[in-house]
């Protein structure tokens, strides 16, 4: 599986848990993130409803991408602080098939904290609701097996 496909698979798994009704839009969200620029606005005819600032589904896919990129980076370099020495190969296998592998026991405490801080920081940055942040955090913990 290519890295792009693996990242999409991971984002879709998060989206399915956090906002299952938005799962069909995962490809659109990925495309939007690829081309989005800060503060970009499209059209003015109907205005921006406040409740859509920080739309949950797009935010989940964005956070999923950032987390995946971070784990991919750790799999490629010596990251002793974040990855257990003997689990690097498992991490590499996870980056090629996230749905089939678990990261239980792969990350150190510092690694788990770092991943969760990324989730919290980016969720805050994109402005999703507190309930959305909690659901996203739970989904990441469950999907990556960080609870163990």
């Amino acid at each position, binding site marked *: 599986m290519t890295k792009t496909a693996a990242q999409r698979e991971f984002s879709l798994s998060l989206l399915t848990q956090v*906002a299952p*009704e*938005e799962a*069909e*839009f995962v*490809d*659109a*969200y990925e*495309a*939007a*993130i*690829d*081309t*989005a*620029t*800060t*503060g*970009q*606005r*499209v*059209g*003015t*005819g*109907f*205005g*921006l*409803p*406040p409740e*859509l*600032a*920080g*739309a*949950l*589904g*797009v*935010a989940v896919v*964005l956070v999923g991408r950032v987390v995946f990129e971070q784990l991919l980076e750790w799999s490629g370099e010596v990251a002793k602080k974040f990855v257990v020495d003997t689990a690097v190969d498992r991490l590499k296998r996870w980056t090629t098939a996230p749905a089939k592998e678990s990261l239980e026991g792969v990350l150190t405490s510092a690694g788990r904290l770092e991943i969760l801080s990324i989730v919290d920081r980016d969720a805050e940055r*994109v*402005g999703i609701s507190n309930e959305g942040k909690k659901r996203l955090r739970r989904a990441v913990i469950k999907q990556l097996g960080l609870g163990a």
Partner: protein
Amino acid sequence: MRQESLLRTLLVLLLASIIPSMLLASSYADHLADLVIAFGPPFTHIFHAMALFIVAISGVIGLSSLLTWRAVGRFSKNVPVGPTVGAMVDEFAARFAVRPEIRIAGGVRAADMTSLVSAGRPTVLMPASRLIEAKTDPAVFRFRLAHEFTHLAANDYRSDVWINSAYLVGAIFMVSAFGRVLWNVFEGLIVGGRFGADGVWFALRGAALPLTTNVVALGSLAVLLFFEHRAAMRLREFHADAVATSVSGANTGAFAGMVTAQLSGPLRWLYGLVNDHPDAGTRTTALTERQAAFRADLITLVIQGFFAATVVEMALQLLLVGSSVDISSLAERQAYLRAQLARYPEIIWGIIGVATAVCAVANFLVIQRLRMLQAPTKASFATFIQTGLLYALGSALALLSSQTFLWEISDARWNVGAWVAQDPERPSIYLSGILGFALAALLARMPWTMGASPLLTALGVCLLPSLLQVSMAVWFLLPA
């Protein structure tokens, strides 16, 4: 609404192309005469100015298309939008006979969908963060999507590109024409400077009126063309809302989140003039009350009155180009026009014919608007008076912004009686136009015309003001 929008687009394109071209031609007659094709006087410079306009607008439209293609190209296409949105797109593509490309645009924070044409392909830019509305509020999403499909089916984007390009080239031409005026003033100051401070002061005093008249004339035309374009854009939004309503049902929720200016009084009125979308309140009302769309922009009546009178003024200046009022008597103008008619009958009657046709279009727009606003009740008489007065106001503004009028009235030391004695044909033609319009508007409300087809109304009623004006012009300038 669609018919009015088309006619207004045509009228604006004509005005935005003809008037600036004529201004450029008169300012640079020597440079433009026989520029490419040497077919001689009397209107070779106008022909070349218009040819230059066509070339320039073609270039601007081409550049605009290229820039749009580049801007849109960075948004992903052929991205699956999911079965929910996909089904809506397929449904509307079949109903509107338009299959747009759906491109996902926007990141986490984005506004709303918009439609345009890129590389000849109708396109809808859809913000990713708004896709979920197709599930959370499907009625609103369908309404907004149908609204964009209507714009594409009605070619609204292309109309705007053409008009904006015409405005840009027209503005460049007008600035160039004004630049010539400034150059002439500068030359006058140089000459005056040879005679010291008194000479400079004399030159400045002499330049004050031409500078003022040019600023007033060009400025008022530019401002009113801008207001007309914005008013026409707002009408197209009403049209898109009306079609979306017929396709997906009325949905006031579609405007619930609109940003409405927190303004009041004159600022709110000005905001309503310059915005390209109507305010949410009026759009909501117009969903169920069609007349609301036509009541919203009564400024268009002033604008059409201005345009019709401006065309009359331009025609008079063209017909008497070599015999203006400040250097000739009425008898001399009559002799001049008779000679021009004998020498160039096709051109003279062509000018009168084109001016009559353009005025008829402007009058048709106003009278059709009047018929939309009217209900056969007593209360509608007030609207009839209001319409006539607004149209007359536009005509008066055109006269007041006319360089020729300002020159003549200043020569007559701002004495209206003296001006009428000196130039009887001009006020008579304008007055006959206003009275003719009032009569045409009255006839258009009669039962036998209210049920008539728009074409019959155009032929039988809207030509009436122009025919009266032509009759008055012939009576004064070509007496038997």
